[in-house]
């Protein structure tokens, strides 16, 4: 299964407005369409995960992720903040691109790690940061994933 199949247009936001790490995490969680209480729990879990070490992997990309009982299947979202945000990334650079991955503790198809790995691989492709910056629509983001065929 390819990365493109996990993303939906509604879970892509190319103009994140949050000005803080917390705000952006909440905005990203909002893309998943969960109920308010689930959003609140997920936010706490993602924050705690960030406290163990930033998920900013460098080159302007962060992959906030966790497993949580509040979702019943693997959920992913993509967000872009063009002017960047301090996310305590490994290379200390501002983060512009956010890939959110959340999965339940038990998955029949066990897709969490493969998807996490594919996104990390995608993020390492030399042209990806520039391509993500030039996206004009969510459809173009989905097209980029399709083109990379990961």
């Amino acid at each position, binding site marked *: 299964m390819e990365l493109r199949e996990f993303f939906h247009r509604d879970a892509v936001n190319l103009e994140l407005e949050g000005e803080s790490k917390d705000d952006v995490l909440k905005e990203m969680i909002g893309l998943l369409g969960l109920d308010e209480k689930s959003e609140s729990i997920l936010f706490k879990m993602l924050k705690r995960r960030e406290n163990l070490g930033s998920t900013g992997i460098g080159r302007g990309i962060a992959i906030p992720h966790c497993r949580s009982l509040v979702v019943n299947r693997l959920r992913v979202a993509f967000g872009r903040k063009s002017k960047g945000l301090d996310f305590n990334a490994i290379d200390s650079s501002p983060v512009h691109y956010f890939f959110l991955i959340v999965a339940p*503790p038990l998955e029949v198809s066990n897709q969490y790690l493969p998807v996490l790995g594919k996104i990390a691989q995608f993020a390492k492709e030399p042209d990806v940061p520039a391509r993500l910056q030039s996206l004009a629509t969510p459809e173009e983001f989905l097209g980029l994933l399709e083109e990379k065929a990961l």
Partner: protein
Amino acid sequence: MHPQLEILLQIQDLKSQRRHLTELDDEGEVEVQEFHVVADDAINVLDQRITEMLGQLETAIRNRYERIAAGRARPVVPVINGLCYGCFVAIPTAVTGDVHRNDEIRHCDHCGRFLYVTG
């Protein structure tokens, strides 16, 4: 959602994170290799948080939780498609079909685990 259930869910998720880091299974390895998490430090942080959250449970719920946790890896499990995902025995539809289904603390009649209805 029942506030105590919310705490139980968080404890379970934290313990899941801890387990991956302790066992350094595939997920733990990814955290260490890809995201540069220092496993021992992270485990300490998680332990502190888990202890704090256990302290927020009402005594009866905490006792029950610890009793189940002593014998089973996952004391809190989702109900998916009407099944307890701990023992895979069907849960009565009165439990799974209720709109306010997570507003009460519920258990599986078969295995005793705390139940959380998803979806």
